[in-house]
C-alpha cells in the first residue's frame, strides 16, 4: 500500500471518545460550491486518539473523492458527517482475535486491533492484496500484532488468497473480523463452512456499499439479511456473516 495515506482529522471535543471500532464517517470530498463528486464518501475510522480528539482514516487515491481528499493541504477543513453505523462486537471473554483484511478494508480492523490490544487481547492480522504494494505497511500496525500477508502475485508472503491463511488460525481464534471486497467474504465463508470439525468461531464482516444519505433514509446501500433488506449505513456496516444472505 505504497500509495495509501493515513489522514488525521481533528474532531470536536468528545467525538473521538464516542467512536467505536466499525463505525465510519461520511466525508464531503469537494468544496461546498461544487457538485463534483456529488455524494459524500464513507470512510471507516482507522484510528482514534481520545486524548487529542483526533481520528484517522485510510485513503487510497483511486477515486475522485479520495483524490480530492489526499490533495487537501494540511490544516484544511473538511465537512464530516458521523460517526455513523454500528460497531464490531468484541466479547470481553474473547482472548484471541483474528483479523482478515483486503485492500482498504484494512482500516476498521486497525482501530479494532488497537482497542483489542488495549484490552489485553491477542490479535493476528491477516492481510491480502494483488501485490506487496497493496498491503498495509507493517508500520501501520502495533508491534504486538502477528501480521501475516498473502499476495496474488506472490511478491510478498503467501502466494494466493488471504483466506487460504485462515484455516491455520481457526482453532486459535475466538472471534473473526473481516473487511474487504465481496469475493473475499465469499471465499472466507467457504473456508469457515468447510471446517465441519471442531471450533467454528463467529465471523463479523464489515461490508462496503455505495451510499447516498448515510442515515438510513434513502435505502440505496442495502444488504440482504435473514431479517430482510437492511440499510448498511445504520444497521451495518458490520454484520454477522451468518445473518447475511450471500449471493
Amino acid at each position: 500500500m505504497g500509495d495509501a495515506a493515513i489522514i488525521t482529522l481533528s474532531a470536536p471535543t468528545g467525538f473521538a471518545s464516542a467512536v467505536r471500532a466499525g463505525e465510519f464517517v461520511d466525508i464531503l470530498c469537494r468544496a461546498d460550491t461544487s457538485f463534483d463528486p456529488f455524494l459524500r464518501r464513507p470512510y471507516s475510522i482507522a484510528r482514534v486518539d481520545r486524548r487529542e480528539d483526533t481520528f484517522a482514516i485510510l485513503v487510497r487515491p483511486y477515486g475522485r473523492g479520495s483524490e480530492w481528499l489526499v490533495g487537501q493541504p494540511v490544516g484544511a477543513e473538511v465537512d464530516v458527517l458521523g460517526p455513523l453505523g454500528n460497531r464490531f462486537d468484541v466479547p470481553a471473554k474473547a482472548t484471541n482475535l483474528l483479523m482478515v483484511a483486503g485492500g482498504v478494508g484494512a482500516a476498521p480492523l486497525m482501530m479494532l486491533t488497537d482497542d483489542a490490544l488495549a484490552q489485553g487481547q491477542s490479535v493476528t492480522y491477516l492481510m491480502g492484496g494483488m501485490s506487496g504494494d497493496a498491503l498495509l505497511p507493517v508500520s501501520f500496525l502495533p508491534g504486538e500484532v502477528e501480521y501475516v500477508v498473502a499476495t496474488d502475485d506472490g511478491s510478498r508472503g503467501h502466494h494466493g488468497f488471504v483466506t487460504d491463511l485462515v484455516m491455520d488460525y481457526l482453532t486459535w481464534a475466538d472471534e473473526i473480523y473481516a473487511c474487504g471486497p465481496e469475493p473475499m467474504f465469499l471465499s472466507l465463508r467457504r473456508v469457515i463452512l468447510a471446517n465441519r470439525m471442531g471450533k467454528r468461531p463467529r465471523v463479523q464482516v464489515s461490508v462496503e456499499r455505495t451510499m447516498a444519505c448515510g442515515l438510513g433514509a434513502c435505502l440505496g446501500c442495502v444488504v440482504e439479511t435473514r431479517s430482510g433488506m437492511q440499510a448498511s449505513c445504520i444497521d451495518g456496516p458490520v454484520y454477522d456473516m451468518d445473518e447475511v444472505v450471500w449471493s
Partner: protein
Amino acid sequence: MNALPQSITPDLTVDLAPKNPRELVLQNPVIAASGCFGYGNEYASIIDVQRLGAFVSKGITPRPRSGNPMPRITETPAGMLNAIGLQNPGIHGFIRKYPRQWERWEVPAIVNISAEAVDDYAMMARLLDEQPGIAGIEVNISCPNVAAGGYCFGWDPDMSADVTRAVREATTLPVIVKLSPGATDVVGVAQAVEASGADAISLINTLVGMAIDTRTRRPILANLTGGLSGPAIKPVALRMVYQVATAVRVPVVGMGGITTLSDALEFFMAGASAIQVGTAIFSQPSVLPRLIDEIGVWLAAQGIPRIGEIVGSAHPARLEPVDDELEMVNAVAAG
C-alpha cells in the same frame, strides 16, 4: 417594489390546499422530498425536523416491497441515478408505525403513495383518511399501470385523471398529485389532474436515465435504468414548473435539483408556491434549515412582506414593467 423597513419578518406561510376544509398550511415553503428523507426520524438527530414546512414520506405501496437488487444508486455529473424500487413496509405496516409517531410532531407529514392499479391508490387513500398525524397525501403517478400493459399513469392525462379522481373520492385529506417528467404533454396531465380534484400539483419526479460501467460493459444499476435527480435536472424541472404554473389555478410545488437559495427563488418565480428539496439533503442535510433561513433573509432584504408576492413573478403577464419593457417581453414571448 415597496420600500419596507428591513426589519420586517416576512410571512413565509403557504396554504397548499386553499379549497380544502382540512387545509394544508405550512409555516414555510420548504418541504423535504419523498424518498430522500425516510420517515422524518432518520434526520432528527442532525437537523430540527420540526422547522420544516413539511416532509414527504418514502413511497408507500399497497403491499410490502423489498425493493430492487443492488446496486441501487450511482453518482452522475451533478446528480445521481437511483432505482431503490420502492422498498417499504406496505400501507398496513406503515400505518402500524408512523401515524402515531407523527401525531406528536408539529411538522406536517405528507404520505407519498404509489400503486399499479387505480383501486389500490383509492384503497390506500381511504386507509390514510382516518389516521392521525397525517397532513396530506402526495400521489406518485410515475408508476406502471398494470391494466394498461405497464404504461406509466403519469404519461397519460386520462389515466392520471382516473387515479386523481379515485383518490379524491376516497379521502378528504389534501391531495397533491406528483407529475412525471416523462409525460409528453405535462401541461395536459396537470390540467386533467386539477379537473379531477387535486388540491395541489407537485413536479417533477426523476427523469429516467442510465449509466454504464465501461469495465464490465454493463449498466451499473441492477435495475438497468434509474431516476436521475440532483442539480443536473434543475433546468428541465424549472421549465416544467413554469409551464404548469401558467396552466392551472391550484398551488404548484416545484422540485428538481434545488440546492441553493438561487435555485429556490427561481422555482418560486417560475410559479411554485412551495418547493421540495430532495437529493441535496444527501450531501448536506443542513440545506433544509439553511434554505428556510436564506429565503426569509432574502425577502426581508428585498422588502417583500410575503413569499406569495414572488410566486410566478417570472411570468410575462405577471410583470409590471414600463411600457417599452413590456413590448420587449411580449416580443420575446411571441418568439
